[in-house]
């Protein structure tokens, strides 16, 4: 697809996602995942109270050190502890929830009437490949996101401006990596491919349509800028208002992530169905739809 077609496909995918959102299609699996995130956040925030004082607290001490168990540092460390918990959660539950959402989106886009229960059943039926694809994507994302502090960490004090630029570049690369894997779950769920084939197919599709793919992943991420900025200024929030305010910021973040994921998965599934309609992917049979390109 040329550039205009790619933009057109992107906007069309988003408009279809909006239409799906109006009917709350595919929202339930992501809501369950968000609920699990909120539960994890609550457990981490209340680590000092029974029964978590003897179970969660040692884990926090192991991962983040003794300081993370003191008030108010525990709230400053909440972003890090929640981030680590979310890595596990996103692999174990996030992958399968995304898979169920993709199946439900596909059913809606192709004119089907897939029930939520069916979406979960289909997703759990492919739990192993979904989990594997999620692990591979997560490992790569974690590796790339750690590059700036690993190699240029000393710039944080010496050359803060340059370090900020490196971090921004790393975020751009992380988004690109996520873009490469964004069609892996649709390939597993809708194309019936195995992990290797799904990842290969996803990368190939992303390379064929780089603009659409990158923007599908990157644009919703803009929503995360505000909570990200708030957590970066955690110390100010803690001293000016209350340390507990940082937990509230993370709750907002979870909600933002819910919608970010929704728009990414919704648009990716829509675009995936359109782009693979000639590959005989399951679920594209009834109503593939197509964007008005004008160029064809």
């Amino acid at each position, binding site marked *: 697809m040329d550039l205009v077609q790619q933009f057109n496909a992107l906007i069309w995918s988003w408009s279809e996602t909006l239409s799906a959102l109006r009917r709350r299609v595919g929202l339930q699996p992501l809501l369950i995942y968000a609920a699990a995130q909120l539960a994890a956040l609550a457990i981490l925030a209340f680590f000092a*109270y029974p*029964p*978590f*004082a*003897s*179970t969660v*607290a040692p884990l926090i001490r192991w991962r983040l050190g003794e300081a993370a168990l003191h008030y*108010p540092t525990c709230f400053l460390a909440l972003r890090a502890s929640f981030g680590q918990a979310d890595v596990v959660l996103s692999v174990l539950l996030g992958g399968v929830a995304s898979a169920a959402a993709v199946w439900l989106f596909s059913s809606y886009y192709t004119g089907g009437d897939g029930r939520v229960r069916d979406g979960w059943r289909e997703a759990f039926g492919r739990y192993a490949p979904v989990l594997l694809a999620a692990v591979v994507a997560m490992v790569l994302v974690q590796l790339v996101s750690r590059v700036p502090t690993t190699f240029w960490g000393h710039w944080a004090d010496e050359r803060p401006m340059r370090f900020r630029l490196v971090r921004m570049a790393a975020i751009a690369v992380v988004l690109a990596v996520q873009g490469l894997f964004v069609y892996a779950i649709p390939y597993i769920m809708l194309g019936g491919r195995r992990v290797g084939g799904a990842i290969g197919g996803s990368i190939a599709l992303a390379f064929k349509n780089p603009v659409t793919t990158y923007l599908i992943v990157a644009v919703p991420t803009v929503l995360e800028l505000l909570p990200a900025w708030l957590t970066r200024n955690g110390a100010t929030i803690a001293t000016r208002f209350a*340390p507990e305010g940082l937990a509230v910021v993370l709750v907002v973040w979870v909600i933002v992530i819910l919608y970010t994921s929704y728009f990414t998965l919704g648009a990716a599934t829509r675009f995936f169905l359109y782009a693979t309609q000639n590959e005989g992917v399951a679920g594209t049979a009834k109503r593939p739809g197509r964007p008005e390109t004008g160029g064809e």
Partner: protein
Amino acid sequence: MRSYRYRATRRVAVLALIGALVVGLAGCGGEELTQRYRAERMAWQVRTLERAMAENPDIATDETVAKVMDAHREIIERFPPPTSIDDTTPPEVVDVARISAASRLALATLLMNRATPETADESLRETMGLLESVRDGYSFDRTLSIDAGTRLAGLREMTGDFSGAIDELGDLLDRWPPAIDEEGDAPDMRILRLPLRRATSYAVRGMPDQAERVFREVHATYESWASTWAGTPTGEAALRMNADAYTAQGRWVEAIAVYEEFEATYGDDANRPSTWLALAEIYGTRLQDERTSREYYERISESYPETKSAATADVALALLDIGDGRHEKARERLTSVIERFGDEESIAATAKQHRAASYEIEGRWDSAIAEYSALAAEFPTTMYGLAAPLRIVNIYDGMGETAAGATALDEAVMSYERVIRDFGGTPAEMAARNYMIQTRVRQEAWSDAASLLSETASRFPEAQAAAGMLMQAADIYVEELSRPDLARELLQAVVERYPEHDAAERAAGMLESLDE
């Protein structure tokens, strides 16, 4: 179908049992962490309030302070002193104990600061109780124990229990060695200062014989510490304290000998300037050996020009030059100090003051006035900056220039008004108000002077001078403004608010004479 349901409910039941078991087991333990979290949270909340009050004195109302005190009391109540602390005690328990002790110390401070004549006795009792509880209940913690002990000694001394204070300091000395670590790398200056403090307490109270005896013990203690921890920072501090003890005792020759021994043993770039400064001051002001004193000052100035000791040395050398009539040279030195230490307010203001005084001594009035004006403008909240506007008035008065003197008085008023407005709530405000009162009195603006006196006394009711200010305002109302009614109100206020103050008796006498 029934079988499926049965299987399903059985699964749920088994899962529920396992869950309950896990939660039950997990629920055991961790109470120490919970307690610490609660204690830290309460301490953080009270600290936030204290910080807000420190940043914005306007919110430090009686109500807010009472809230802070109540919060400390709640912490103390909920977290009593630990029964015992040893190596096996969980760190969380130790942390909670420290938080509770810190609240006890903070409450003790607030009680003493907020005490009024009516509540003084009760506050003192409660404060002593709190400090004793920290000293006895938290003896596992060196910092807390020493803090409580030294404050108890101070309170005992203040209330006339001198022997109690001496015993308190003695107990601390017996209990804690002068080094925090066994190697002597971390000297504890609070302990190191205690022997000298004991001795000076006797000297200050006019007990020279006992002071002499204690000073002998002091030197013995410091010498013993210096030899026990020889070659370590603790040994270094002990030797230095011994020199300071000889200085405090006025035994200049011994002081010089120990300072010289100190320099020979531990002298380095960090401590040499202050050692030379001490030697220069002893030679100059005590032994009247100006030549040696000057030599030391010059050595500091030349070897360590960027240190604050060098600034002090240069100012001292400039004063010597001024004394010898070498004003140009003195001012050059002072200018160099101002250039090097312009950001150090007290140093720069001192140098400017002496430069202005040098012009004044030379009779170069315009330059002196310009210098004092700059001093007032650039360092308005320093001791010299605050005094400068009135110095200008004095110069004009000395020159017999009445009109210029009157203008200078008006300018002084404006200058003090600015400080009062811009630095409200700081010590500079009180000082500026005092100068403003002097200015108003010199202007014979009696009404303004009286209003300012009573306003200042109301704004700083705890100040030592508050009762005296009310008395002075009452005097002005009687003598200058013929308003005995207003004077009576103020005198009544002195009698009621400051019954223990000397002024109360005079106020009562004045009230009687006014009634007649």
